[in-house]
């Protein structure tokens, strides 16, 4: 990266201003564009800094816990958390909990995303359908989805189902609203080409609205992924006997915070890789966006 404030310009004589004033009348040579190699060095150093930055944070934490500045009952040093990570990995409980959490995520997120895309495309294309349904969406969107949990238990019973449905609802809104925006942002001339070729509603849906909205859809998928983890862990606090959210809650109540920290880190790692996977899928499905420039 080039430092925008210094694009490789230097005076051939970098003396103090007084010096240059003294030599008034003699032209100063300004050399521009010469590659001094400095930028490469800066970029490399910053890359390394980025890499070791988390270690600095952990090191500081470890040190503060070691000297007693942090209460080790609630903020155990990273080395302690590491030990508890090893034990929950070895006894298989972390793996089982992650599996449960991921299964709920896949089902709930998948159902919400799929229905959000289909309903969103339909709403975007049909003004009649939009006039009927969009007010419902706008009115119910601001409801915090976790608030629906007790109701859902009443409707679908205890266990996995209310968690999955809650997730699906939360994801649905974000994906549907973004998909509608995607369809509505299609340029009129693109729609005109479809009409010119006498495309049917279904053909509009599949060959124009869907591909044209993919960028919006994938932005929504990425945003709603973060939301999905929030809803999922929250629902697992109260409604699940297994899963990472359940571990976080129970280990906190037992004052055994090691597994709690391990689960928090696991959620963040899972979240990170899910976002990467979503981006990868987006790149795969939108090859025309890779070829820019």
């Amino acid at each position: 990266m080039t430092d925008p404030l210094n694009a490789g310009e230097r005076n051939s004589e970098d003396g103090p201003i007084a010096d240059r004033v003294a030599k008034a009348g003699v032209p100063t040579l300004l050399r521009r564009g010469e590659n001094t190699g400095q930028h490469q060095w800066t970029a490399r150093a910053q890359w390394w800094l980025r890499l070791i930055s988390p270690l600095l944070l952990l090191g500081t934490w470890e040190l503060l816990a070691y000297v007693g500045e942090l209460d080790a009952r609630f903020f155990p040093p990273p080395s302690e958390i590491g030990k508890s990570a090893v034990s929950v990995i070895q006894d298989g409980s972390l793996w089982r909990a992650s599996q449960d959490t991921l299964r709920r995520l896949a089902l709930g997120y998948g159902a919400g995303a799929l229905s959000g895309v289909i309903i969103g495309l339909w709403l975007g294309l049909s003004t009649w359908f939009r006039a009927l349904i969009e007010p419902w969406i706008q009115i119910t969107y601001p409801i915090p989805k976790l608030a629906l949990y007790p109701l859902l238990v009443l409707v679908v019973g205890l266990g996995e189902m209310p968690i999955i449905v809650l997730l699906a609802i939360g994801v649905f809104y974000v994906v549907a609203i973004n998909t509608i925006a995607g369809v509505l942002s299609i340029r009129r001339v693109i729609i005109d080409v479809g009409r010119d070729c006498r495309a049917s509603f279904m053909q509009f849906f599949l060959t124009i609205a869907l591909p044209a909205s993919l960028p919006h859809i994938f932005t929504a998928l990425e945003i709603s992924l973060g939301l999905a983890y929030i809803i999922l862990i929250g629902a697992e606090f109260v409604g699940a006997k297994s899963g990472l959210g359940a571990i976080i809650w129970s280990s906190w109540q037992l004052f055994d915070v090691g597994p709690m920290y391990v689960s928090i880190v696991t959620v963040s790692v899972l979240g990170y890789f899910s976002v990467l996977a979503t981006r990868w899928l987006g790149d795969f499905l939108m090859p025309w966006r890779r070829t820019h420039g």
Partner: protein
Amino acid sequence: MPPKIAVRSLSKVFQPAHGAAVEALRGIDLEIGEGEFVSLIGASGCGKTTLLRIMGGFEQASEGYVEIASCAGPRDLVTSTVFQEESVFPWLDVEANVEYGLRIRGMTRERRRKIVDHFIDKVGLSAFKHAYPAQLSGGMRQRVSVARAFANGPEVLLMDEPFGALDEQTRIVLQQEVLRLWSEHRCTVVFVTHSLDEAITLSDRIIVLSARPGQVRADIPVEIPRPREVSSLRAHPLYAGLYQRLWSLIEADIERSRPMVAA
């Protein structure tokens, strides 16, 4: 035999949600014969694009109608349009863009490929068959639109200032390509342009519309023989006279549409 396209006492008034109504076209009567290449010209805002969009089925007239004498089968397209704005699908490569209309109508892959290859070759994009629009220049993208319209095999080709946004050199090349394609695949063409030169270069007949509300002011035949060579056409003895005549027909409108200073 009826004319290919008949426009009968057609008027169009736009009524915006707020503000005054705009009368775009008034009492247009027009006949266009089978296989004719007709240009519509006029000062900007005279409704020539609106007239074309009504012919293409994109807008409804306020009064009157357009009648097209069609022998098209149920799967054929009567009209196909080349738009002024960039209208290629960014998510399809060149080949898929050109074959879009054929795919929509359920043509088999092999038949489609033959037609598409032919037209991609005709517009000189064979080397870019699998390129996406983002990788092409504006002129190449417009070539894709032209190829798509011809591949649709319509009875009437509607072109709405297709080269308006291109630089002059690219425009000359594309005009030549359209003339060549049209000579090989005869169909009726209605071509909207604001360029007098373009109208003379391409057309058999030029319809001059007045300023808003657009009315037919003149109907001028272009008797320069074909095949025409775009780059040397300006040297033809008929060219200068035609150009003068067209200019004198629309000059007053253009003066009038100049913005008022300190009204």
